[in-house]
Structure formats: structure tokens, C-alpha cells
């Protein structure tokens, strides 16, 4: 019974991360037998969401061994499941944990592993974009099943299929002490003010052109005036220590696709474009008329961000007040 699987990270409340829902939409396009594999506390509570987004089956274990230890227990369980059920293709999100699992799994199964896929045309045929999304590359995948593909965030639109809850198949695999080595002993979450970047309708991102860290408050003021807006940053200013890594947009940071993306003092290096170029509309503010970001902007403003931003904020407040 060949099938297409989606490896999903699930919160302890049963919430399925967005990448898995995106991948489920594609899995349903590709095959009739779609299953989700979820490991760790909350996994079995994902049955409803998994079913609603198109999976018939949910292989689940609520055992905390899968989240307490990095990758090895999950890889072992997945490998056992693969031997039992022989799926054709497994889709992973581009999260840290999923990349760890997919990378190790490849060595177990001897399967091909493709990263950064932007589309999947069949069980052995996928696409990726290179050079900051300027070129599309078609890749055929060969070797033993299952093919393993890590999908870039926001490549697909999640689509509820209206299906009932997925059938839960408990995962019962022995995890030896050899796999309980890299232990997560503390968790630290930095709560950001305002909406999460992945969910915000508008993202305002700042780069070197802001000149100094204090000027990020101009972005926050604009975000506050708009309302459903989040503030992000380019890698240059994260590396410089101006703002935390959680705000980084681009190849090594988050991939976002809001209704409107406002790039402030960001030149538009390839690595940044990868993370935001699928935004529905792009506004760029930059002093340098030649900055590459202007090639992607629906509205480009050549000017000093420190001067222009407060004027925009004031104009929005005036409009809302009217």
C-alpha cells in the first residue's frame, strides 16, 4: 500500500505546525493514500486537523522521548514505520527539528533527500528555485523509496478537505538508551509583541539603512499605526546584534508571504529575497536608487527612511482617524 506521508510537528495542545498543513495540500494532490506521522506529546490529538486537511491515517505517539531527545528516537520510529508500510514519498517542513530528522533518516534508508523544494510534480519529480528565486530547477529523484523532500515554507496553500478525523494508528517502537543522548534540558521562548510574523498581514522589515538599532522603533511605530503588522529584519542587522534572530527574514531565517511587505533600508541581497519575494505586494524604501530590492517592489520609494517613515506613520494615523 504505497502512500504519501507528511511528517508533522505537533504542539502539546495538538496544534499542527503550518508547514505540515501546507504539505498536506500537496500530498492530497499527488496521491490517494495520505498519512501523517506525528511524534511527541499532543500527537494523537492531531487526528481531527490531520483528517480535515486530507489525511486518512495518523501514525502517532504521545511519548515525550521524541521531543526530549534530538532526532534519533524520531528517526528510529520513522524507519520502523517505513519498513512496515513502505511509503513512496515523505514530505518534511523546513524547521530545525524536521531537518535533523530528515537528514539522519536519509542515512538510514539510503534514500534521496531534496531540500528547499518549492513544488513537487510527482513522487520522483520536484522543483526548487536557486539564485534567490531567479531560476527554477527541475530535479528527478531516484534510488530506493521513500523519496524524502524538505519543502520551503509557504510553497503551498493549506486547504481543508472537509474530511472527518484521521484514523489514529499508535506508534509502538522500542527506543533504546543509545538514542537518548542529545537531551533537551531547557527551553527558552522569546515572546514577541504583536502578531507572529508568519500570521501578520503586513510585515515591516528593517536593514542596515536604518543606521542604528534605536531606529527600529520607527518600524514599531508604523506597525502600531497599521495594526495587524509585525516587525522583521535582514540578516545583516541580526548578525550585528541589533535585534534577535527570531526576527530574521531570509534564507537562514523565516520565509514569509504577507499581504504587504515593507522593506526599509534593505538592499535586497539574494539571501533576503528568498525569504520574502512571494509577498503579495512589496513596498521598498531605500536611499540607493540602484538597490536590487527595487526590481521586486510594486512601490519603490527613493529616500531617507528615517525621514519618510514618520511621515507614513502620521498619514496612516490621520487616515484611520478620519
Amino acid at each position, binding site marked *: 500500500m504505497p502512500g504519501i506521508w507528511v511528517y508533522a510537528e505537533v504542539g502539546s495542545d495538538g496544534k499542527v505546525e503550518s508547514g505540515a498543513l501546507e504539505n498536506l495540500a500537496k500530498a492530497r494532490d499527488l496521491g490517494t493514500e495520505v498519512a501523517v506521522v506525528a511524534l511527541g506529546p499532543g500527537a494523537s490529538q492531531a487526528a481531527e486537523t490531520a483528517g480535515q486537511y486530507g489525511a486518512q491515517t495518523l501514525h502517532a505517539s504521545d511519548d515525550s522521548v521524541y521531543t526530549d531527545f534530538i532526532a534519533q528516537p524520531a528517526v528510529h520510529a520513522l524507519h520502523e514505520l517505513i519498513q512496515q508500510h513502505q511509503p513512496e514519498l515523505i514530505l518534511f517542513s523546513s524547521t530545525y527539528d524536521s531537518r535533523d530528522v530528515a537528514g539522519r533518516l536519509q542515512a538510514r534508508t539510503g534514500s534521496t533527500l531534496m*531540500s528547499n523544494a518549492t513544488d513537487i510534480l510527482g513522487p520522483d519529480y520536484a522543483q526548487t528555485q536557486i539564485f534567490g528565486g531567479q531560476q527554477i530547477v527541475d530535479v528527478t529523484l531516484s534510488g530506493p523509496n521513500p523519496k524524502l523532500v524538505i519543502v520551503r515554507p509557504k510553497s503551498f496553500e493549506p486547504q481543508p478537505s472537509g474530511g472527518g478525523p484521521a484514523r489514529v494508528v499508535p506508534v509502538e517502537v522500542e527506543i533504546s538508551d543509545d538514542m537518548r*543522548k542529545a537531551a533537551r534540558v531547557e527551553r527558552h521562548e522569546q515572546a514577541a509583541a504583536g502578531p507572529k510574523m508568519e500570521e501578520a498581514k503586513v510585515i515591516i522589515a528593517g536593514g542596515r539603512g536604518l543606521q542604528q538599532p534605536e531606529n527600529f522603533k520607527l518600524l514599531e511605530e508604523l506597525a502600531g499605526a*497599521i495594526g495587524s*503588522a509585525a516587525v522583521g529584519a535582514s540578516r545583516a542587522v541580526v548578525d550585528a546584534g541589533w535585534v534577535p534572530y527570531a526576527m530574521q527574514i531570509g534564507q537562514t531565517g523565516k520565509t514569509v508571504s504577507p499581504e*504587504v511587505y515593507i522593506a526599509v533600508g534593505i538592499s535586497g541581497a539574494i539571501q533576503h529575497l528568498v525569504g520574502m519575494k512571494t509577498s503579495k505586494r512589496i513596498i521598498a524604501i531605500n536611499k540607493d536608487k540602484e538597490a536590487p530590492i527595487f526590481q*521586486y517592489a510594486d512601490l519603490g*520609494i527613493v529616500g531617507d527612511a528615517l525621514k*519618510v517613515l514618520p511621515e507614513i506613520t*502620521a498619514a496612516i494615523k490621520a*487616515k484611520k482617524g478620519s
Partner: protein
Amino acid sequence: MNIIALVKYIPNPEGPPQMGPDHRLVREGVEGALDPGDEHVVEAALQLAEQSGGQVTVLSMGPEPALAAIRRALSMGAHKGVLITDAALPGADTLVTARVLAATIKRGEFDLVIGGVESTDGYTGTLPMAVAEFLGIPNATFARNIELKDGSIRIERQTEMGYDVVECPLPALVTVTAGANEPRYPTLKGIMQAKQKPMENLSLGDLGVSAEDAKATQEVMGVEPVPAKEAGEILEDPGQAPARVVELLARVKVI
């Protein structure tokens, strides 16, 4: 303590990458260097070796010019270099590369393997984890900080929302982010000494890896440009900006 630093030679890290007619990145005949991400790998390895009185071996798979990347690491202070070059390897995917690197590492004693989060040219970001699995050791990946303590390591692992602390007994594999450290510049003395340091050149035959094991599982069938986006409007008079931004935001109903 024996530390292995995994590094990659990449062509022209500053300029735009070029693709040849065979759909592979052009690696020959262009100015290449140590992947900038891997400078953090070498720095992390050197710091841990200095703390523990250990040795750093720099390991790379690539064409002959990749020697330049290893030289750079040696001039930063690494002790020994190993380069695997073979006519069967150009076009190798992550599975083949991981297999070859793991086979090389297994030949000697090691306590810690350090790699980068992803390369600047291919950015698959999964190679070190596959190496760890082939070696049968745990991975403590995406470290922004590494500490050694009595036969184990403690790292701060980057997460989507912050960081986790991960503890892991050695031997283990770690990957380091660009935030982990500030790579040192080679000194003139370091550059001179690098030329005298031991350097080993290996091929697949030395590693017992067969041509079948080196067969790639991915093939690029075609490359085409993404259709260009319709040009937007550029305002050279920033005085118009507030009204136009308000108009756009209102049109898409976000204000």
C-alpha cells in the same frame, strides 16, 4: 581531544554563482574560498581545542582547488588537513557526500565532529545530520554557543521562538550558526606555518567506497528563469510617499 571540522570549498562566495551546461555549479577556473559559514566551524573547533588541549583536523570533499579552503583553515590554526577528491564525485548529492565523509572520519579516532548549518552555495542543510547517523553518534545541531564539560557538550540550540539547551555525551556531532562566534583572521605566521602542516589526499579507493555507493540520486533535468515580475512604480519624490503608501494599504484592506 580530537575534533573534526567539516568544511566546504565554494567558488566565488562574494559574487553571483554560475551554472555550467551540465547544470552544475561552475567550480573550476573561478576564484574560490572557504565557505564563509565554515569559518565559524573552524573557529568553534579551534576554541574547543584550545580549551581541551585538542587537535583539529579539517576535512573536505571537493575538486583539487578545494585545497584552498583547507589551507585557509590551517592558517587559522587547524592542525591537519584531509581532502577527498575522486573523478566519480563531481555531482555527488548529500547522501554520497555524507557516506564519503563518514567513511573518512571512521578511519581515525574522534571525539567531536563540527559542521556548518548549511553551505552558502547549495544550502541543503542536512549533510551533517546524515554524517552523524552514518557514524552512529548523536547530533546537537544549530548551536549558537558550545561549552565543553567532562566528556560532554552543552549547547544553545537555535529554535523558531528562542533557544533550547541541549546536553550530549561525546562522541557527538555539532553544527554551528553564524552567531556562534567571530572567526579569527589568519596571521602571517599562521599562513607560513600552514604550508608545513600535514595534508592527506584520499580517493574513494582509499575509503572502500564503491562507485555504486557514489552514484547520485538526484539529477537536474532543466533550468529555466522565473518569469520576470512586472516592473513596479518608483517614486523619486519621497514627498508623495505617505499618500501612496496609505492608498496601497487601503486598497488591499489592511488599514
